[in-house]
């Protein structure tokens, strides 16, 4: 008996060990019997529904779909491993955050924002983890490399796209401050200031 499309997809997602995009799921089937993209999507939706109320969930991340333990059950499952994953240094996290929000960005620009020189070991560590890559070069003397984040970065942090990253706090401008300082002035200049700040 031919297994259902959704069961084949479930088995493949669990066997793959990495997120699988829809195209790769379609290629599990012989050429002449490849399900349409819509059919694969339907099967994925059914799977997600089957998992409701259970310990696992279907999650779409940047490079495709994966089956993972539901967040609520993570504390139990984490008991399986004695050693806990290490922490990342603030310098590494700040660098990664700047690249994620400001990409493509050169090393010099990162240093400008952080106000300190950037150690090579941090950039190497980020590249070795596959979280950042050289996305191009800026047309400046020395053609400095432009860095950007990878799909692996998004996968690691359980994100589907950069849009899902937490929003940055807004930068206030001097004009905002003036408005707060002097309500009368603010009333008079209201529209101008808002535009300048926007």
């Amino acid at each position, binding site marked *: 008996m031919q297994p259902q499309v959704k069961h084949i997809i479930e*088995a493949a997602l669990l066997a793959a060990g990495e997120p699988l995009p829809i195209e790769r799921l379609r290629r599990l089937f012989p050429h002449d019997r490849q399900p349409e993209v819509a059919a694969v999507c339907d099967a994925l939706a059914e799977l997600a529904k089957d998992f409701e109320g259970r310990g696992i969930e279907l999650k779409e991340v940047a490079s495709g779909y994966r089956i993972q333990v539901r967040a609520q059950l*993570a504390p139990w499952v984490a008991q399986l491993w004695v050693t806990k994953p290490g922490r990342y240094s603030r310098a590494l996290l*700040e660098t990664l*955050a*700047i690249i994620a929000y400001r990409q493509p960005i050169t090393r010099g620009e990162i240093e400008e924002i952080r106000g300190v020189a950037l150690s090579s070991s941090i950039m190497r560590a980020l590249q070795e983890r596959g979280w950042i890559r050289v996305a191009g070069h800026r047309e400046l003397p020395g053609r400095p490399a432009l860095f950007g984040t990878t799909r692996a970065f998004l996968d690691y942090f*359980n994100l589907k796209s950069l849009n899902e990253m937490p929003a940055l*706090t807004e930068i206030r401008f001097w004009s905002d401050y003036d408005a707060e300082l002097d309500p009368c002035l603010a009333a008079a200049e209201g529209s101008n200031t808002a535009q300048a700040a926007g």
Partner: protein
Amino acid sequence: MAGEVGVAKEIREEQAHARSTAAVAKIKGEPLASLPHDLYIPPDALEVILESFEGPLDLLLYLIRRQNLDILDIPIAEITRQYMRYVELMKDLCLDLAAEYLAMAAVLAHIKSRMLLPQPTQEAPDETDPRIELARRLQEYEQFKEAAGALDELPRLARDIFPGRVPAPVRRIERSEPVVSLRELIMALADVMARAEHFAQYAVQREALSVRQRMVDILSRVGCECFCALADLVPAGEGRLGVTVTFLAVLELFRERLIELRQTEAFAPIYVRAAAAVRNSATPGNEQGMNNP
């Protein structure tokens, strides 16, 4: 270590001083009478704290935040004094003081000197006010400092996210063959030709190709049959050209001593067979090729 404790004491005094003088600080334009108590820093922890600053911007932010000052209205003179205290302390503790700390000290001193100059009070700070640039840099840095914290809080693999992974039945992994286009093949040959200047001696014309093919056809055919009539080697329907091509191929094969020709008497049919050596070793009819010796 005594010196360190001494400096630490100084720092605490300085912090107390900052608290007492911070009454000038404003939060959203409101003067603050008293500030929340700053954290008491045990002397042993000082070094750890100082080492934990990510740079001059981080240190400045710390000084501003612990006094609940507004980044857009920093009391430059006071902050500069506090900043220099920390920088001196880092020097005293022989911390690897990055040059950026001193560069920032210069920026602060520059701003301070400008503030001392008389200014037209009624005008809003113009574009050249160096405090604007400092406030922008501080805010921008703080943005990413917070973003780094938020990033750290995101669920991540192996800590909060555990993907399912199960074994699959072992199966012979299929190997697929590389794809080649005819164009690629031709371009490869063009390369050979370009490289070999003496290629002219191998020059082959379109017409010659059919002779070459006929040579191989004949060779494989005579390999499997003992004797083959020359006439039978000419495929039907090829006309005069077919006869010519076959004849040329036979002559070429004969010249290369790949075939033997037999004729029992004059004007009798001519028979073709593979040369003795070819006969013994070729694998006739095996189109898929033979295994390498």
